[in-house]
């Protein structure tokens, strides 16, 4: 290579200790002030915002759930009108799936993956900032619409023709479809960042078989996002086109077909479940190793499971369509794949059980949530095996049995690990510990409340209660179990109140954590809590899958990176051999401006197709501003 860095440039091999830290801090710090905050491209700043915003949407979605449980606590109640109820259940599903579950997992990845692979920032940090703004604006767009009584009311799946202009002439389905576009853009951007971060920014020596399991999980998840979400993009775009400019994709009188929508939606919708669940398994593995005090047994088995699950998740979508009158053999094929996904899931569970079996468990709150996860998720997985069977599914499809099933899978498989992860990584993110006492309350309220709320729904489904009904008649024998379920929901909600209080109290005044309060083994614990803007003063060198357990006193590092400008170390894909010292972008306001221009374009285009014309130039201008070299040192080299 002919280009060499300026030999006079100051490098980190010439400095040490505090001087090195201070210099790097100055280079990598987010600028101060409001403008500085809006310009930030630090993955930790963006990640924190992402996490907080996603939890805010969890709170909103949770309030909707409580409203629904109040309405259904007894027969023929009039607490909510049919119209309100339909908006609320649609908003609940859409918020939880698109504004909470997927973003929160990506948010944790944005924060943790660069730290865990031992680098200084995520790949494409400006894209990362842009992604956050798109997510925020999309979520606000949906919720402001709801406040204005234009909240979508056609279900989070928006089946045509109910969501077509003919049967829903309001703007409600457009709001839903365009919110999807917002969150898809955000999610796709993060996925590419994660993939490139994992592929290229790993610390030297972190070969493919030394990547922490959480990072592996996020890698697989990111690939799922990249291959699943284009499908819903095509779907939501075609729906908007049908409603806005009279295309005929779903108009059966002009050659369109309603089932095309269902295929497109579920080709995304089923992998979506795994996009939410696989990060949960990554969190479980991370927490388990630390609190069982030994590495997770069967590292390769778990990764094989993740990869197999990832592939298989693309061949299950038709099990959402077993009652649409498809050929029975076709349906049977999807039974085959759906059943077999139990094998990789089971193998993972057995690895975790074996780890607990051999380990010396330390019963702190994160571990409690992992144990709760195993108990709940296995039940959800088993009811999943039931709905994979065509004959059984014809009875339980679209009933409360399915509602119970997927809440066991999603809350058990993702929210329990997630809350455990909050307790686990809160010290790293804030530098302070959460209260263990409140943590125990939190766990037991969640565990009991969840099961009381959702277990009875299995029975409700079997005794005939369909989903998505705003009420039921008094002669249907469903009242008692519904009341019980609503009571459980109240307890479950209380557990989140405890979590909120715990976070609020300890955010500023909690006990100081130190670098590695749990004596964990992965690299994010090798730096201070919270980490400095540069993450690591020197990039670590990895020689073992559990580097901090191999040697907790001293960290092997590389030297030779610039301390005058933002520089990352790129390494090779499989062996993680150092390859280049690539520049990492400076803070910039352009991602925010681009997000604003894109928002104007997206919202405009649900009202008039001409928005494509007048909405594009501002986007082009802001994008050029984003990519045009700013004259800073690393750009000009």
């Amino acid at each position: 290579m002919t280009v060499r860095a300026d030999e006079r440039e100051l490098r980190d091999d010439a400095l040490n200790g505090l001087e090195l830290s201070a210099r790097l801090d100055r280079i990598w710090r987010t600028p101060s002030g409001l403008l500085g905050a809006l310009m930030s491209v630090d993955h930790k700043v963006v990640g924190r915002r992402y996490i907080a915003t996603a939890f805010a949407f969890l709170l909103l979605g949770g309030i909707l759930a409580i409203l629904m449980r109040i309405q259904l606590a007894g027969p023929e109640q009039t607490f909510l009108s049919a119209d309100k109820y339909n908006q609320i259940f649609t908003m609940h599903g859409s918020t939880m799936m698109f504004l909470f579950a997927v973003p929160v997992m990506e948010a944790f990845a944005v924060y943790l993956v660069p730290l865990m692979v031992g680098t200084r920032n995520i790949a494409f940090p400006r894209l990362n900032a842009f992604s956050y703004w798109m997510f925020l604006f999309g979520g606000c767009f949906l919720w402001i619409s709801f406040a204005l009584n234009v909240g979508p009311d056609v279900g989070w799946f928006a089946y045509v023709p109910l969501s077509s202009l003919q049967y829903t002439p309001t703007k409600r389905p457009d709001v839903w479809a365009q919110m999807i576009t917002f969150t898809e853009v955000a999610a796709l951007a993060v996925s590419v960042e994660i993939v490139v971060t994992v592929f290229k920014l790993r610390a030297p020596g972190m070969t493919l078989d030394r990547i922490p399991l959480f990072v592996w999980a996020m890698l697989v998840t990111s690939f799922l996002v990249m291959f699943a979400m284009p499908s819903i993009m095509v779907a939501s775009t075609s729906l908007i086109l049908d409603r806005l400019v009279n295309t005929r994709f779903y108009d059966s009188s002009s050659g369109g077909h309603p089932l095309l929508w269902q295929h497109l939606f579920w080709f995304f919708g089923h992998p979506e479940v795994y996009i939410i669940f696989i990060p949960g398994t990554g969190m479980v593995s991370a927490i388990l190793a630390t609190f069982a005090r030994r590495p997770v047994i069967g590292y390769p088995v778990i990764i094989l499971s993740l990869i197999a699950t990832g592939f298989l998740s693309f061949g299950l979508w038709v099990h959402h369509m077993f009652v649409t009158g498809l050929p029975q053999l076709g349906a049977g094929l999807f039974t085959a794949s759906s059943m077999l996904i139990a094998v990789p899931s089971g193998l993972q569970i057995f690895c975790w059980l074996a780890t607990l079996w051999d380990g010396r468990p330390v019963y702190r709150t994160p571990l409690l949530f992992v144990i709760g996860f195993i108990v709940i998720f296995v039940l959800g997985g088993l009811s999943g095996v039931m709905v994979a069977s065509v004959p059984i599914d014809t009875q339980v499809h679209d009933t409360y049995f399915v509602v119970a099933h997927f809440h066991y899978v999603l809350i058990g498989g993702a929210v329990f690990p997630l809350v455990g992860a909050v307790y686990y990584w809160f010290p790293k993110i804030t530098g302070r510990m959460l209260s263990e006492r409140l943590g125990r309350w939190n766990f037991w309220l969640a565990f009991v409340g969840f099961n009381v709320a959702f277990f009875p729904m299995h029975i409700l489904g079997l005794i005939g209660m369909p989903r998505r009904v705003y009420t039921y008649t008094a002669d249907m024998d469903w009242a008692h179990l519904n009341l019980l379920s609503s009571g459980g929901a109240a307890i479950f909600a209380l557990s989140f109140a405890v979590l909120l209080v715990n976070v609020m109290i300890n955010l500023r005044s909690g006990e100081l954590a130190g670098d590695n309060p749990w004596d964990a083994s992965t690299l994010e614990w090798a730096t201070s809590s919270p980490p400095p803007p540069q993450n690591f003063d020197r990039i670590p060198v990895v020689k073992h899958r559990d580097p901090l357990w191999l040697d907790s006193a001293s960290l092997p590092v590389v030297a030779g990176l610039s301390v005058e400008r933002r520089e990352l170390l790129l390494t090779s894909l499989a062996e993680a051999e150092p390859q280049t010292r690539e520049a990492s972008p400076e803070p910039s306001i352009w991602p925010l401006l681009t997000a604003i221009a894109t928002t104007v374009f997206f919202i405009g285009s649900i009202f008039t197709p001409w928005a494509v014309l007048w909405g594009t130039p501002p986007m082009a201008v802001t994008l050029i501003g984003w990519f045009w070299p700013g004259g800073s040192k690393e750009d000009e080299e």
Partner: protein
Amino acid sequence: MPIRMRTALVPFATLPLAACAGRQSTLDPQGLQSAQILNTLFIFLSVAAVVWIAVVIMLCAGLLRRKRAFDQPLALHQPFERTTGRVIFVLGVATLAIVLGLSIVSYAGQRTVFAKNEHALTLKIISHQWWWEIRYENDSPDKSFVTANEIRIPAGQPVKVELESADVIHSFWVPSLTGKMDLITGQKNELQFTAKNAGIYRGQCAEFCGLQHAHMAFAVLALPADEFGRWRDHENQSANSPTDQLGRQGEQLFRAKGCALCHTIRGTLAGGQLGPDLTHVGARTTVAAGTLPLTPATLGAWIADPQHIKPGNYMPKMPLQSDELIAILHYLEQLK
């Protein structure tokens, strides 16, 4: 497991659930298909219960067992690691065997449930927001008739329903008889089932179809064959003419107030196609698609203000004086 033993176990295992089985329950099968599905469900349920309990026991045992002492997390005991690897492999193979076995059970069930009988009695169901149109079609038009929200079938005979939708997607579901099948715009689906015994079975729309999805039920009345024949012959006939002055007045008002624009009453000038056929409405068991049992009081309340009982449905509230309402109600009651 031998079939006989299995069927003997079914009622036993589902007893705690059957206790709360209502009138729209998969746990109280009254059809050949629903019984077959419950068999499959029971096998899956038993396996699932055993597996779940086994996992929880393994979890508890793993947590509670006496642990050997070690303080370095990486000081692994190699023979243990190897044994564990083997145990996980064996458990994986066991999982595989279980799911393959369950798959075979599922395919077998699927084959039985969807088996077709060419001699089945055929009727057509067209779903509307938010009611059901039922058409008994025959090669000769004078033996074809239309009814709504109530399906009468002969008990013990296979029935084939052809499913179509007039507007959005709905789903036809009578859990006591068989699993559900969607009614999809622009597509023709069909479903076969056989009611084992005479009785009344409730069904309900199971696919979200808009505002009043919750109030879109119907009843299946399985009748003994001869009774079904009599009902069919009667249903073929046009509506009864009103026998008294009040009834005749009601018939006139039915047209004058616009009811006839949407509803058909065969044998009269009322020929509207938008709402349910009311030719023999007085003989039905429910009003407003299973929302209320049909009595003079409920029918009157429904005509007086349909938007109160089922807000947002497509039957408008008509301005009626109370005497007009009474006359129309009297007329409709006579349409048996």
